[in-house]
């Protein structure tokens, strides 16, 4: 569904993304993980042409994005932002209905029905939240609206840029579960960027590890754990492992006392 072929991005002599190739299959949830500066967000933004690549080719649904009008391309792809995604001067309903408006949906009532439907899907009561402004919502509620906005025009492909990064642990884990459910039930193809390896393992059908603009390994979480391709991937897995061991140790101490 999404195919990157030897994609390169050079910013003023600096290779942010270096000959990067990756295929995201239809219905797959692919997580792109790496430290900040690894080039993962740049890669994501090249897919909907917020950034144009310096070299290589990108296909979405079989079509070369380089041949498409970037504006129309973006309207066909759902996009969820890290922090400020919602426009502060628009209500929840107006934020969610931006893409239908851009697409020129004429039937106002149909748009309103669709907005309400999506608010329900992301777990926000339409009557209560429709007319609120973003600054009247909690962080979790805002991100739910962000997801509703990305999905409202029924995109086949969704790009997510650290969507749950700014949330507290409990809200994050709840939203992760809910998104996984939506991804499956709507048959979406999702590419998500995160620096949280646990999130990557929990959500991803496959996880792609990036470092210095290059792809180190792309495999299912189990395979990644069992057979890391190199020392860096292994070290990346070190942190969750030690955390798990400590957690078990603490639990067993409690049993003894």
């Amino acid at each position, binding site marked *: 569904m999404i195919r990157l072929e030897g994609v390169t991005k050079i910013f003023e002599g600096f290779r942010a993304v270096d000959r990067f190739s990756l295929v995201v299959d239809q219905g797959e949830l692919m997580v792109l993980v790496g430290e900040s500066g690894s080039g993962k967000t740049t890669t994501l933004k090249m897919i909907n042409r917020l950034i144009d690549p310096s070299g290589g080719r990108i296909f979405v649904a079989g079509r070369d994005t380089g041949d498409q009008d970037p504006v129309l391309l973006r309207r066909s792809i759902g996009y969820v*932002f890290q922090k400020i995604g919602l426009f502060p001067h628009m209500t929840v309903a107006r934020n969610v209905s931006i893409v239908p408006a851009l697409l020129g949906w004429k039937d106002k009532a149909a748009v309103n029905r669709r907005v309400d439907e999506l608010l329900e899907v992301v777990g926000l009561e339409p009557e209560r939240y429709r007319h609120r402004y973003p600054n009247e919502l909690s962080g979790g509620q805002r991100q739910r609206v962000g997801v509703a906005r990305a999905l409202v025009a029924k995109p086949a492909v969704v790009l997510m840029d650290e969507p749950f990064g700014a949330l507290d642990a409990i809200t994050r884990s709840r939203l992760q579960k809910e998104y996984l459910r939506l991804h499956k039930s709507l048959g979406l193809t999702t590419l998500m960027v995160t620096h949280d390896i646990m999130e990557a393992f929990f959500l991803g059908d496959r996880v792609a590890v990036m470092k210095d603009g290059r792809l180190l390994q792309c495999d299912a979480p189990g395979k990644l754990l069992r057979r890391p391709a190199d020392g860096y991937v292994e070290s990346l897995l070190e942190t969750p492992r030690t955390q798990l061991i400590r957690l078990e140790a603490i639990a067993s101490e409690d049993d003894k006392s």
Partner: protein
Amino acid sequence: MITSRLAEQLALLPEYLGNHMILTLCALAIGISISIPVALLATRVGWLEWPVLAFAGVMQTVPALALLALMVPLLGRIGFAPALAGLVLYSMFPVLRNTVTGIKGVDPAYVEAARALGMTDGQLLWRVQLPLAAPVIVAGIRIASVWVVGIATLSTPVGSPSLGNYIFSGLQTQNFTAVLVGVVAAAALAMVLDLLIRLIEIAVSRRNLALGMTGALGLALLAIPALVPILATAEGRVGERSVVIGAKTFTEQYIIAELLRRRADDSGYRVSNLQSLGSTVVFDALKASRLDCYVDYSGTIWANYMKRRDQPGRQSVLKIMSAWLLKEHGIVCLGSLGFENAYALAMRKDRASSLGVRTISDLASRTPTLSIGGDYEFFARPEWEALREQYQLKFAARRSFDPTLMYPAVQRGVVDVISAFTTDGRIPAFGLVLLRDDRQILPPYDAVLLLSPAAARNTRLKRAFQPVIGRISDEEMRQANMLVDLKKSSISQAADWLSGQIEAGKKP
């Protein structure tokens, strides 16, 4: 007494306020509709931003009075057009700057989000950047509106009546009721305008239609009375039975203009007075027949427009000047009114006698220990140059004053000598004495009634003004000026008195 003075001033309010409002609203409307698109362009085309803001900034540093006055020769017109052009230039800077700042201040994350959702540049601008920058842009508009209301008072000297008429003539004639009415009206207008703009801003940001309508209705209500005087004037200008009389910015000019107005009025003309005009503005306006008549002084035309430095004597100056005016500009000099309002030097009476000074020659040797004060113009005029050279004047210090403050300054000894006008009522009132120009260096300043090339063909008008020619003496003019400047009489009372003198003079 106070209420009648106030009533007299308030009667002028519809005309002045109406003109002021239409000028302000037009300038703001044009200024804003130029500034916002230009600012938006500047935010897109990077290299444009600096020159645009620099240009507007420079316009802002030009003193407003000078900016408006410069528009007169630039546009070759007086009245509404140059005033409007100056105000438009003046209104642009805060709107330009705030629009650029506002658009650039929108968080780049919102801009990227808008693009990621598939907005075009135009959609980004209208749906995201402008709404988010609106508070900053509106703040700029509010600053511009308050400035323009204030600066519009300066359109009076370029020939566009405004609330500035109250302020200019009030300060000159010591009529502080008039000044106060002008200032209060301008302040009230600024506040109302600011309030309405704020109302519309709130309405737009809250999408409150009712509030927005209230604001828009308020603006419309401001615009309607503003149009009335324009329509009235348009109607008044029809046909040649209307006359426009000009006046410069001092008491004597107001009184004479009022006297002429009555003459023309009695002959069945519809008369309007265009007052408090700048000295060159009024002459240019007459040349172009935008005014029908005003009174100037032979020495002014001799030195300023004919650039003559010689002094062939009073009658010769009159004759040569009249011929020159007709030949060069088609202006007809109907004759001298009889009095002379010359430049002179004046001192306190007691100070002059203790120094033994009666003439400028007497003064010359004492100048190194004395200071001199003059009006803004005086030290730049050829008369001062001539006096200084011919009498070898070497004053220790020289200071420029507003004419209103010059007389108290010499009275209190802040300066020893001042430049004065010979018909000024303040000379006797402040206990001053004029020093005789014993070597006849200064040119004569006969008050002459000038008619524009268009009015020169109007024999009826000439006949109406004829009885005033040669009828007013120096002493009478000084008395009439004193009535206004010191006795707090109105211009119209002084004109009453002066026409009484003229009638009385006819009988014997």
